[in-house]
């Protein structure tokens, strides 16, 4: 009887490998070893590009979507978003890769792989939706005066994550919090 392969678990291992090493630097050999499967199975089942797409999919549903639903369902609205950003600032990136796997891959593969475009769109759509819900919640509680400004604030906060992804390698947690709070001060 052939050993049954738990695809979800195997993909999760691939996520860590790509997250830590990027895309190009990883060989079929590294992947097969790290995922605990044979190279031929890897070839037949995925191929490197498809494996990356499936890994990103798994990353988004396990690591990112829960954050978006936390934000969406928290009655503190914008303060919930701030909490998430502070958490990113406070994580120690030497021990735990707290940078966004998707953004790292996007940077590395910026000149190729159009198959990633739909993934970006989906990611941004979910991010905007959850931020918008949170900001409307704050508006209802009286924290944002002009409801028409909300789309502008959503974009500002979406962008903040991109800046943070770079800056967190260069500034201490304490400094990052000041940067983050300065940007949140734009919401009024």
């Amino acid at each position, binding site marked *: 009887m052939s050993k049954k392969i738990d695809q979800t678990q195997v993909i999760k291992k691939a996520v860590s490998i790509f997250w830590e090493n990027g895309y*190009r*630097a990883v060989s079929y050999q590294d992947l097969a070893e790290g995922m605990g499967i044979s190279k031929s199975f890897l070839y037949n089942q995925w191929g490197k590009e498809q494996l990356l797409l499936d890994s990103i999919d798994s990353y988004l549903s396990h690591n990112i979507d829960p954050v978006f639903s936390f934000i969406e369902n928290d009655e503190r609205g914008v303060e919930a978003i701030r909490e998430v950003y502070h958490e990113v600032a406070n994580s120690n990136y030497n021990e735990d890769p707290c940078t966004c796997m998707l*953004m790292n891959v*996007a*940077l*590395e593969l*910026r*000149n190729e792989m159009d198959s990633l475009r739909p993934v*970006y769109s989906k990611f*941004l759509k979910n991010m905007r939706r959850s931020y918008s819900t949170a900001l409307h919640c704050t508006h209802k509680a009286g924290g944002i005066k002009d409801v028409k400004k909300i789309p*502008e604030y959503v*974009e*500002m906060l979406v*962008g*903040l994550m*991109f*800046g*943070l*992804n*770079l*800056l967190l*390698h*260069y500034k201490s947690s304490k400094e990052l919090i*000041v*940067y*983050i709070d*300065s*940007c949140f*001060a*734009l919401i009024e």
Partner: protein
Amino acid sequence: MRPKEFNRNSVLEKCITLFWEEGYNGTGIQKLVTISGVNRYSLYEEFGNKEGILLASLELYKERHVPLKKLTNSSTIQEAFYQFYSSFFYPSKLNSHPLGCYISTMAMELRETNEIQLFFNNYLAFLEQEFSQLLKENSDLSEDDLATILKQLIMYYCTSMGMYIIFPISETAKYLHDNIKLITRCLKK
């Protein structure tokens, strides 16, 4: 006096394009030799090693290609920042640079390198200094408000240099425009 066998800056310009397009780690010394037309021995004599070439190229980019003139040649502060940020996405036709900022791209790739840590932090401090001067000359912000707006501007500098990767360039331009408007809102009194 020994004559210089090669033009230092034109070699560095070629290295900028190569590192930027292929990544620092993706560029072997042989490729640098081929593209610069300077042999390995002379390259090492001038720059020490591959990292030395990188640091010299970053320094040259900062001197030559960071569009500081845009900050002083505009009629309003809002326009000045917009022109400055967006120039990175409309590079001059004279050079063949990719989109974005070379320094930020290298800062992302080489985030664990000590020399880059130092260089990038100094670069951000340098930008902050330039921004601060412009704001001081053209507005009467309080110390606190000035500190806040400088943080916003530096954060959005980092943001826009990562953003164009995911957004089409037209959306990036709109994004820059909207955000700079939002940040400089407090200046219109």
